[in-house]
């Protein structure tokens, strides 16, 4: 990697609802001025805390959908035979929810009755916040190609960093290990995994660390609500040790996190609770870890 490229910090979790956005919002406040990015395009929440002022909002089309001209269609059924997504029903109507946008039907149709048309899959947005510029997105309800939108947002964040001379991009990732998460991993320097001490959290942590291994990305861990189940917290610590992941901190369970959210503020700005102090300490360690990655 070019040494002048901005560093990328990605916050992920495997399991949803472990506190990614809570932590990213606090990091945004602590970092003061770095580039921010919300790549959880399925359910983007970071803007609810950071209150961005939208500068540009571009339509994003990442895929296509088959559209049929009923005047040309002879109900021959060849399209239905070839479609592998069951997107053409027995009356030869196209179900746009099942349509993958591959274009096989268009190719095989002897009457040229089918055309592939681009669909609006979402919006790619550039904003300013009081904590720095932000690249984020919105997926249109029920649309596909969230991975492509993530890639677009990341490129936008990279461009903002380049234009403004920033050295770090802080990225809020999505849950899971599939397409949008894999898209968010590209060129990441450090992944911070936010997990929780539940058996589900532990199982999902194993899968997400497997994913980081697969793409050879360095991961660190934060255990959120660690005091909810100390036994599982211990197991997560063991797993971190075995997998060579550094544990950067353990955040206690505290209703102040929800209170801060009700007030639409990051925890570190809302209070000086033990939660806020632990996040501050984690942020310092993250900065040090980022310096160490080349």
């Amino acid at each position, binding site marked *: 990697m070019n040494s002048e490229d901005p560093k990328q910090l990605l916050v992920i979790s*495997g*399991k*949803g*609802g*472990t506190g990614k956005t809570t932590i990213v919002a606090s990091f945004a406040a602590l970092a003061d001025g770095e580039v921010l990015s919300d790549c959880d*395009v*399925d*359910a983007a*929440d970071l803007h*609810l805390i950071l209150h961005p002022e939208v500068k540009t909002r571009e339509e994003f089309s990442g*895929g*296509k959908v088959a559209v049929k001209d009923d005047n040309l269609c002879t109900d021959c059924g060849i399209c239905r035979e*070839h479609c*592998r*997504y*069951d997107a053409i029903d027995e009356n030869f109507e196209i179900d746009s*929810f099942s349509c993958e*946008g*591959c*274009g*096989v039907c268009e*190719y*095989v149709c002897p009457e040229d009755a089918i055309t*592939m048309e681009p669909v609006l899959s979402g919006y790619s947005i550039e904003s300013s916040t009081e904590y720095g510029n932000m690249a984020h997105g919105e*997926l249109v*309800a*029920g*649309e*596909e190609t*969230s*991975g492509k939108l993530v890639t677009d947002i990341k490129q936008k964040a990279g461009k903002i960093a380049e234009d403004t001379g920033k050295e770090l991009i802080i990225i809020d990732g*999505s*849950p*899971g*290990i*599939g*397409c949008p*998460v*894999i*898209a968010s991993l590209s060129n990441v320097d450090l992944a911070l995994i936010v997990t*929780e*001490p*539940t*058996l*589900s*959290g532990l*199982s*999902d942590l194993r*899968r997400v660390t497997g*994913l980081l291994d*697969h*793409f050879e990305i360095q991961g660190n861990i934060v255990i959120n609500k660690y005091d*909810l*189940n100390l036994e*599982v917290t211990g197991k997560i610590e063991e797993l971190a040790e075995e997998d060579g992941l550094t544990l950067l901190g353990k955040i206690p369970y505290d*209703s102040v996190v*929800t209170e801060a*959210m*009700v007030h*639409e503020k990051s925890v570190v700005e809302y209070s000086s609770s033990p939660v806020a102090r632990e996040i501050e300490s984690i942020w310092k360690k993250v900065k040090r870890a980022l310096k160490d990655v080349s």
Partner: protein
Amino acid sequence: MQITISAGKGGTGKTTVATNLALALAGEYDVQFFDCDVEEPDSEIFLRPELDNEEPVNLKVPEVNDETCTYCGQCGDACEFNAIATFGENTLVYPELCHGCGLCSLVCPVDAITEVDNKIGKLRSGRAGNLEYHDGNLTIGEPMATPIISRLKKKIDPDGVSILDSPPGTACPVIESLHGSDFALLVTEPTLFGLHDLKLSVDVVKELEIPLGVVINRDGIGDDRVERYCDSEGIPILMRIPDDRDIAVYYSKGVPFIEKMDGWKERFLELFEEIEGQAEYQKRQKLIET
């Protein structure tokens, strides 16, 4: 009756609701359980099934015969997913981008492309007491969850009750899980994030024209904005699960809380009756409207 438990936001309690509901119904009906969160399947932790079947999920990906390929590049031009491309005298396939549609082999003028199986995950099944259990599992590093969910859903018996635990979000894997359901049960929490993501889920479910209802989990935290939203939209709130440390601890240990806390099995049975009523009522309302 196919009920899909979904949520825009992760960690709101989909698996908690899905597993407890399935267990409550298991003795009373023929119940199939499907874990459609194939990226992070966790319901096994709560249902502890005895698995007796495992099968691979393969996607067809192209394999290019270098002897016959003329490097014309038509396959790459046709592919909507950039999964195949010709550079000079080399045609390369990127299996992780391939959606398995077969268009490249159709367009190849010299029949240089054959399709081979690429394993992207697996399906497993077994029994958990009175429940028939099914899950899907995406191989780590593979991006495409949707084909696994679609294969998993082929096991649904339309005559019984099937409970589907959906992945979080609003993108393709969620649509695939919801598609064809008789009812969408959306689990949320009474917070700013919960409400925002609930609205996204409601948009998707309405787009799919599926009857819906809401479960508020961790009731008591946050504020009343979810409730006000549901009231104004006429969305029924079918259950409230209180913010209770015992429930959170049972969850952390992988224990379904209806097995430990009195009265909840009955409440989940009532939830099912309400779902049946709402599914029927909302379907009828839609017919009247159109």
